[in-house]
């Protein structure tokens, strides 16, 4: 009776999907996520973004399915040629096939986004949940600590970090530069995840069942993982989806400034960075990878937006 989800479930009684599925009849109230899933399945934006994301992930896993040419394929005779039946996205100034490179660059770009988001969300959630749970001076201390990083403008901070650890003329290894890009994105954006987690924890902490659990003598570990986390994870996951898109965009922006990932790694950002000095005359060199970045980011932002709306009972 006190279960808020039951009320949410009842309001949907009588809709066409309800009767066909005996598994979630009126006696079995769906969870918040079950409700959200039903809501999402009917949204065109969610379906569209899901299709794009699945496609991008398949490209990242098996790029050879989509491009018969390897990323290193180069034919200088065709350098700077525009799009044609032979090379869909044209050739760049080095004679590389832009389509092949864009397809093969998907994996690195997606991985950078994924790891940067994971790191951001893990650090942010951990600090946020500690700040929200313990409150008082721990909260003040951690919040001010977060403000320090939030006060630095993102692009500026990333430039300083990346140039400090790699002098412009040095030649760092592939792994190192990817790790640095991921690290600098995470270091500068974790306060956002922390604030979301902190405010969700502050609300959840006051709920009766958490007080009851504490009254029954549950230890901190159990309260946090059994009771708080399942109720605070939703807003953070929504943020993570959007942040994943933003991190892919950030990788491209840093590359455009010439301080991100560099060759021999192939990523969308690297292509954009290679195109920086030539795009005035060879615009397709830059526009195709940038288009891939935009569409991928768009898919993640749309997904996050749709999930947020589905999880928000007020919006229904």
């Amino acid at each position, binding site marked *: 009776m006190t279960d808020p989800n039951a009320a949410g479930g009842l309001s949907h009684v009588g809709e066409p999907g309800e009767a066909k599925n005996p598994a979630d009849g009126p006696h079995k109230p769906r969870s918040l996520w079950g409700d959200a899933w039903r809501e999402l399945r009917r949204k065109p934006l969610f379906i569209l973004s899901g299709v794009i994301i699945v496609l991008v992930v398949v490209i990242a896993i098996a790029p050879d399915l989509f491009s018969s040419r390897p990323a290193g394929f180069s034919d200088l005779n065709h350098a700077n040629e525009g799009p044609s039946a032979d090379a869909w996205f044209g050739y760049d100034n080095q004679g590389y096939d832009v389509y092949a490179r864009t397809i093969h660059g998907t994996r690195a770009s997606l991985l950078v986004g994924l790891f940067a988001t994971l790191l951001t969300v893990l650090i942010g959630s951990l600090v946020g949940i500690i700040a929200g749970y313990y409150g008082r001076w721990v909260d003040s201390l951690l919040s*001010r*600590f977060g*403000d*320090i*990083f939030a*006060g*630095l*403008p*993102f*692009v*500026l*901070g990333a*430039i*300083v*970090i990346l*140039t*400090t650890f790699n*002098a*412009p003329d040095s030649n760092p290894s592939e792994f190192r530069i990817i790790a640095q890009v991921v690290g600098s994105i995470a270091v500068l954006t974790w306060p956002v995840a922390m604030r979301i987690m902190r405010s969700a924890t502050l609300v959840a902490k006051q709920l009766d069942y958490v007080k009851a659990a504490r009254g029954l003598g549950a230890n901190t570990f159990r309260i946090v993982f059994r009771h708080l986390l399942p109720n605070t994870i939703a807003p953070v996951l929504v943020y993570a989806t959007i942040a994943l*898109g933003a991190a892919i*965009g950030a990788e*491209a*922006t840093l590359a*455009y*400034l010439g301080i991100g990932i560099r060759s021999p790694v192939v990523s969308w950002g690297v292509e954009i960075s290679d195109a920086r000095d030539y*795009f*005035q005359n060879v*615009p397709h060199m*830059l*526009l195709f990878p*940038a288009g891939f*970045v*935009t*569409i991928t*980011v*768009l898919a993640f*932002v*749309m997904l996050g*937006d749709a999930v947020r709306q589905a999880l928000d009972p007020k919006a229904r």
Partner: protein
Amino acid sequence: MGRYILRRLLQLIPVFIGSTFLIYALVWALPGDPFAGKCGQRACPQPYVDMMTAKYNLNDSLVVQYFKYLGNLFSGDFGETFSGNSIGQMVADAAPITIRLAVIAVIIEAVIGIGAGILTGLRGKGFLDNLVLVSTLFLISLPVFVTGIVLQLVLAGQWGIINPSVSADATVGELIVPGFVLGSLSMAYIARLTRASISENRRADFVRTAIAKGQPNRRVVGVHLLRASVIPVITFLGTDLGALMGGAIVTEGVFNINGLGGLVFRGIQEKDGATVTGIVVLLVIVYLLMSLVVDLMYAVLDPRIRYD
């Protein structure tokens, strides 16, 4: 109210010191010889090294260096670059351009964003609503440099309406397109924020009261509804003005604008620590002060909020 401001100002101090020290440490604690490549192809002469070491306090520990630097800064002395140019003068030349760019960006995003938000918030679901929703999602996904380059290629390259790069004086007219590019992301956020806030407040009791007592529709929307709905938007705009000044690096790069962003980017590439720290400190101060101002404006705009 006075006590609240004081408490907030005190809280700003550790944040300010933390942010600026972080940058200072990153810039000055670089591994390697700070004089490498500063004197062309040969090693720097010893008197020059001694002079510069004394000037930047390089023999002190990092913390002492930092506080000496901060002391100079607060007495109005930004110091000099390695080549002896006054950083204060460089900042004074570049800052007005960046401020102008950021203000134009904020005006453009406020006008278009709030306009689109009000329109869709009042109308509710429909074609216009979907159009604005999709275009805001698209703007959010578009990296700023892509917007900049595409507009530059089309408007300057294909149609020849604008010059591809902005001249040295950077007049308001020239900055409109860069301002639009810089503000495009926030414009999308503002449109969505306004829309959400309007459609929530539209059903609020005070709006119903205003309609019931016979206020004309213009007054209900323009005064009652808008004043309550605009609060989160103002907050966003305030912090955004600070954030845009720091985020202008990319836009300034695309359009060749000689603002703070270009200055700091050159400073980083030439390893000129004093320039970088000076400008970053300035930007952090602007950002922190703007967020304080925004907090205080809450109380002015919404009489329900009291800080005592």
